[in-house]
C-alpha cells in the first residue's frame, strides 16, 4: 500500500474520454485512500471497453493514472484472461467448452460457430467482425451452451437457431 495520491494529469486524458475517466474516479473512490491500485482491474476493463484492446501505451497510461508501476499493471493485464492484449474483431465471442457445458453442447456450439464463421479459436474473420475464443467456466453452466459477447453480454441456451439469430443481430 502506498500513500501516493492518484495522478489524474497523466496520459489517460489524451487516450480516453472524460466519461471513462469519470468511471475511473468512481472505481478509485471504492477503496481507502492510498489504495487506488485496487481499481486497476476495473480501470483496465473500462479502457478496453472504450478502445477494444489494451496496447502497451494504454496499460502504461492507466498505470500512471493510478500512480502504480507500469509493470504492475502489465502483470494484471497478462494474468487475467478477459483482457485483450491484441486487437479483436468488433464482436468477441467466448464460448465455454468446459466439461459441464460440453455435456450440454458447449463443444458442439463452438464447432458450429467455427464452421459458420470460417475461423478457429483465437482468430478473427477477414472483415474484422468476429473473433472466436474458447472460454472456461463462466458460472452459467445450467444455461449451456453459453457464450459471452465482448465480455459484457452473457448468452445462454445457444442452440443452432439462437446462434444464427445472434450472428444476424451482429451483422445488422
Amino acid at each position, binding site marked *: *500500500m502506498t500513500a501516493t495520491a492518484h495522478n489524474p494529469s497523466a496520459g489517460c486524458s489524451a487516450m480516453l474520454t472524460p466519461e471513462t475517466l469519470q468511471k475511473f474516479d468512481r472505481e478509485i473512490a471504492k477503496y481507502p485512500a492510498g489504495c487506488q491500485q485496487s481499481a486497476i482491474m476495473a480501470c483496465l476493463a473500462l479502457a478496453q471497453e472504450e478502445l477494444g484492446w489494451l496496447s502497451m501505451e494504454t496499460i502504461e497510461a492507466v498505470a500512471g493514472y493510478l500512480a*502504480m508501476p507500469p509493470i*504492475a499493471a502489465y502483470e494484471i493485464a497478462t494474468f487475467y484472461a478477459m483482457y485483450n492484449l491484441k486487437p479483436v474483431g468488433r464482436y468477441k465471442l467466448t464460448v465455454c467448452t468446459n466439461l*459441464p457445458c460440453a*455435456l*450440454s*453442447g458447449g463443444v458442439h456450439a463452438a464447432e458450429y460457430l467455427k464452421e459458420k464463421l470460417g475461423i478457429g479459436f483465437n482468430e478473427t474473420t477477414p472483415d474484422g467482425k468476429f473473433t472466436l475464443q474458447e472460454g472456461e*467456466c463462466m458460472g*452459467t453452466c445450467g444455461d449451456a451452451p453459453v457464450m459471452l459477447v465482448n465480455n459484457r453480454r452473457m448468452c445462454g441456451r445457444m442452440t443452432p437457431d439462437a446462434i444464427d439469430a445472434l450472428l444476424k443481430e451482429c451483422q445488422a
Partner: protein
Amino acid sequence: MSILGAINPVLTAGLSGDDGWHLQAYVARGGYEALKSILAKKESSEKIIAEVKASVLRGRGGAGFPTGLKWSFMPHAVQGDRYIICNTDEGEPGTFKDRDLIRYNPHAVIEGMAIAAYAIEANRGYNYIHGEIWELYQRFEEALEEARAAGFIGQNILKSGFSFELFAHHGYGAYICGEETALLESIEGKKGQPRFKPPFPASFGLYGKPTTVNNTETLASIPFIIKMGGEAFMNLGKPNNGGTKLFSVSGHVNRPGNYEVPLGTPFAKLLEMCGGMRGGRKLKAVIPGGSSAPVLPADLIMDCTLDYDSIGKAGSMLGSGAVIVMDETTCMVKALERLSRFYHEESCGQCTPCREGTGWLYDIVRRIEAGEGRVDDLDTLEYIAGNICGRTICALGEAAAFPVQSFVKHFWDEFIYHIQHKTCLVPKDVQWAGSGFHRLVEEA
C-alpha cells in the same frame, strides 16, 4: 427463472420473475428485518455468532467450514479498518448458484453482509463478483445504491451508530481468485496468487487488516438464520449439516438448473426434480460438488443423501453443491482430459508441484485420449497426483489431483481399454449424444 425447483426453500422462497430483486420486493418478503432488529436491540456480537453457530451453517464456497466458528476468529482488540468480503467469484466448473442469488436476491446478500459486519465489527466490505457476469455485477451495484439510499448500508445505519460501507469489485477471468487469499490479492490490484497461511485473513487480510471471507450463499443465509433462529435453520437439514442448500445441476438431465433442497435430501430425489436423465439414458457418474470433487459412479451416488457427511463417506465432497451429471454416452477419458486442461491453465504458477504437476497430468491424460497411452501411465498419474497433494500453498493442487485419482480409480477398466485399444470404450458415434445440441430440450 433458472431456479427450477425447491423443497422447503429459504434462500429462494417467494422469488418471482425478474423484478423481485429490487429493494421494495425484498422488503415485502420481510427483508432487512433481521438487520433492523439487531440494530434496535443493540444485539451483542457474541449472541449473533452463537446463533450462527447453532444453525450449523457450513461455508457454501466449497470447504464447508462452520461459519460461526470462522467469525469467532476475528481478533477483538485491533483498531482501524476491518473487512467482510463476499466471494462471488464462482469459477468452479459446474457451479452457478451464486449467480442466481445476485440475480434474484441481491439484497439478501447485502443484508447478510451487513449483519456479518456488525457481528465481526467490520466497517468495510467488498463483494468480489467474477467478470463474466457483468450484467449481474451492474445489478448488484444498483442494489447497493438502493440499500444505501434506504439507509441500510453507509454511515450511522438507521441511526444506530453502526457504520458499514459496502462496494462491488469485479474479477476478469481467473479461477484462482476464488481462493480466498488470491481474492484478497486481486482486490489489492495484484495478480491472484494465494498467500501462505498462517497468518489467516482474520489476523492479516485485505490491506493487512482483520478480514473474513465468506461465500455468497453463506452470507445470503444469514438474515434468514437470524429471523428463524439458529436451531430452526439447523432442523431444516440434519445434525452437522444445517439448513437448505442450493444445488446447481448441470449435464445430462432434462432440466439443468438450480434447486434448493434441505441438506440430507436423497440424491435420487434431486435427480427426479431435474426431470430425470435426458433421453432416458442411463446414469454413469456424478461429480457431486464442483469439478474438483472426486467423481462417484452411479451406484455409489444413488445411495447418497445430499449432505457433507454422506457424500464424504462415499469418498467425495459436497463442495460448492455443483452436481455434474454424466450419462452412459460420456467417455470418461475425454471428460477427465477437459478438466485436467482447465486446472493446468488455471494454476497460478507459484508452486512448482502444481505448475509442473498439472501440466504433466494433462499431458498424460491427453496422450491416453489420443490413443498414445502406455500401460504404466495410470501409475504415473497416481504418482504425480499424490505428489501434488499437500505440497502447495493453496488447494488448487488438490483440486487438480482429485479428479484424476477418482476417475482412474472408479473407471480403471475404461482407461485400460483406451490404452490397449487406442480408442474410447464408448463408441465414438454415440459420444456426446446426450449433449442435445441440435435439439436442445426446452425448459419444461
